[in-house]
């Protein structure tokens, strides 16, 4: 994606990676207080090239190659935010966000509350997350539950180039800390993005979206599983089943009104994510949907997720990750009641 020469105007076919790159470029252009910081984000442009070319154009004081210290990156970003900056930190991989866990969950998340609103920390923590790239251990984690569980953080994840482009800009403009989860296995997926459209024209950052209408069963996912949902709906259609698909986009706050509305029509719900199911996002969604839609449900909410094991060696990940067959199997189960 790095060397793709894209005219910075009009409707373009972009990869998610390039859309993020252009979104970050826009954020740097729009506000001189925006800084990018992280390991290898400068000269190299990041290991996934998401920040490619940005240090060259904005300088070393706007795009910082940080020491190899995740807690240091987030901790200094907090100080920079106190000083009036809007740092965007890159954690190189999901598994490497854990060394910064105290700074993210104790410091960043709680400062506004502790200070009774006197300190706002508009910090974005970008984390490439999820599996499916055949990588070695600690490079395929789904840490969203940790962050979404922490009050004070907002957690969002785009699944399309258009969302990637706008959501990253919206996250930078947000006055609350945002954990911005990027489905790394989808960095190379392409889609159309209108680069002339203002950020204000985009949907709200914390809104979920029904992206395919259906009548028989609602299937909810986010980030890397959105493609699996799409494939599942195609396959189900061949079997004569109509799936309604929802992209959550935001895990904190959760926007479940569209899910409730959908489930009241379909009576069935399957929730899909790569994160292990135990106490995961699907558990929360199932609980809330059961409360809100109890008399509409034809079957218990079904969950498809990573198994409750450590992320396996990559030769096993195809068995670990939710796929079309497991989603359709779960859909079938909702018709067994």
């Amino acid at each position, binding site marked *: 994606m790095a060397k793709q020469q894209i005219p910075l105007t009009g409707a373009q076919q972009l990869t998610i990676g390039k859309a993020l790159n252009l979104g970050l470029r826009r954020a740097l252009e729009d506000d001189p207080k925006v*800084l990018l910081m992280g390991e290898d984000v400068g000269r190299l442009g990041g290991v996934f090239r998401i920040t490619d070319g940005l240090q060259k154009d904005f300088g070393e*004081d706007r795009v910082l190659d*940080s*020491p190899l*210290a995740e*807690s*240091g990156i*987030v*901790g*200094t*970003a*907090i*100080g*920079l*935010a*106190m*000083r*009036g*900056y809007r740092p965007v930190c890159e954690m190189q991989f999901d598994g490497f966000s854990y*060394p910064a866990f*105290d*700074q993210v969950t*104790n*410091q960043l998340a709680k*400062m*506004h*509350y*502790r*200070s*009774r*609103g*006197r*300190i*706002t920390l*508009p910090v974005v923590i970008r984390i490439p997350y999820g599996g499916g790239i055949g990588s070695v251990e600690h490079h395929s984690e789904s840490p969203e539950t940790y962050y979404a569980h922490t*009050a*004070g953080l*907002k957690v969002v994840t785009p699944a399309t180039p258009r969302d990637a482009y706008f959501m990253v800009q919206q996250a930078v403009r*947000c*006055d*609350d800390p945002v954990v911005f989860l990027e489905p790394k296995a989808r960095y190379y997926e392409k889609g159309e993005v209108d680069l002339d459209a203002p950020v204000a024209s985009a949907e709200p950052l*914390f809104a979920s979206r029904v992206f395919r209408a259906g009548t028989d069963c609602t299937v909810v996912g986010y980030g890397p599983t959105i493609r699996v949902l799409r494939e599942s709906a195609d396959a189900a259609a061949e079997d004569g089943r109509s799936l309604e698909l929802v992209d959550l986009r935001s895990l*904190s*706050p*959760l*926007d479940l009104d569209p899910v409730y509305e959908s489930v009241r029509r379909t009576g069935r719900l399957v929730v899909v994510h790569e994160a292990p199911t135990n106490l995961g996002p699907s558990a929360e969604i199932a609980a809330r949907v059961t409360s809100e839609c109890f008399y509409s449900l034809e079957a218990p909410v079904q969950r498809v997720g990573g198994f409750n094991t450590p992320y396996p060696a990559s030769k096993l990940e195809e068995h670990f990750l939710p796929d079309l067959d497991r989603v359709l199997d779960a859909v079938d189960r909702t018709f067994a009641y």
Partner: protein
Amino acid sequence: MGDKPSTRPRSGTGRTRRASKRDDEVALQGPTPDPEFVQLLSPDGERVDHPDYSVDFTDEEYRGLYRDLVIVRRLDLESTALQRQGHLAIWASLEGQEAAQIGSGRALRKQDMAFPTYREHGVLWCRGVDPTAPHGLFRGADHGDWDPSEHNFNLYTLVIGAQTLHAVGYAMGIGYDGKVGTDDGEAVIAYFGDGASSQGDVHEACVFAGVYHAPVVLFCQNNQYAISEPVERQTRTPIYQRAAGYGFPGVRVDGNDVLACYAVTRHALDAARHGQGPTLVEAYTYRMGPHTTTDDPTRYRNGSEVETWKQRDPIARVRTFLEKQKIADDAFFAAVDADADRITGRLREYVIDMPDPTPEMLFEHVYAEGSPLQDAERAWFRDYQASFAGEGH
């Protein structure tokens, strides 16, 4: 206790010097107080010259430092008493560390920013924050109710060492703002302790400070103990010497000498504001009291050690100096005591009368831009509470 540490040599050619070994130190079970450090006022109240550091205070300023020291100690003793009487849940005493805090706190210029631990009540006093401000935290009413930007004094941090990174980041921001290089430049001070020196965050803070040449003073109060663990459990290397590994100067100062703490900190802050980068200061001091009111130091240190440190009391030496030099008279000392009575009396009233937070405050300020989950919970809780109306609950 034998001779006092006044046998410390009074002249030297280096930046630091070695004090003579004393008999009474043999009895110590804890760290050997035989350090090289900068000292300008000996424990028996004699001014000591130092080639690299000097202070030239007016009599008024000398008296002011004494007043600060006395008042923060009295506030601290009162706070401990308030805890013992059930008005505070816990208190972290600064007793013994007054000189390190007043010296460094008074060295700050108005534009400088401080990042404290949870024990910097003396620095808080120097920054002009109301001395009652931290007591909500220790009572359980809030997490610190002062405006950090109004006083350039950040909230207390309880996770050990975490604030050092915030300080360095803030200092990096000063650099990006171009606010270094002049007398009006800004600088940051990060407080931490000997225990925190083992934390990864403090290491990372030093790395970032060095790499980005940040205008920050990393001020370690080595009070010899991390709760029960003596400094030997943290390091075999004198803490200030670690600075060399990060590429900036480190200096150890007599942390019970308010003049030396002032001089060393002022020097380091001015270097930072002029663009000369960070300094690590180790203030060699002693925590006279327990870690907090929940702690029992008799389980891990002996009385003779404490007695030895009492001979180095940070306040007594200033009083001796003021008396010897006839800078202050009995009327002044009485006036300071009366001030302390008044201020601690006000603290006592404030703490005892402190209202409990309202239940609604539970839901306030979770997010700057709000969030529907907390809004829904707040609404639910309001209705839930209203459902008890008239039931006598």
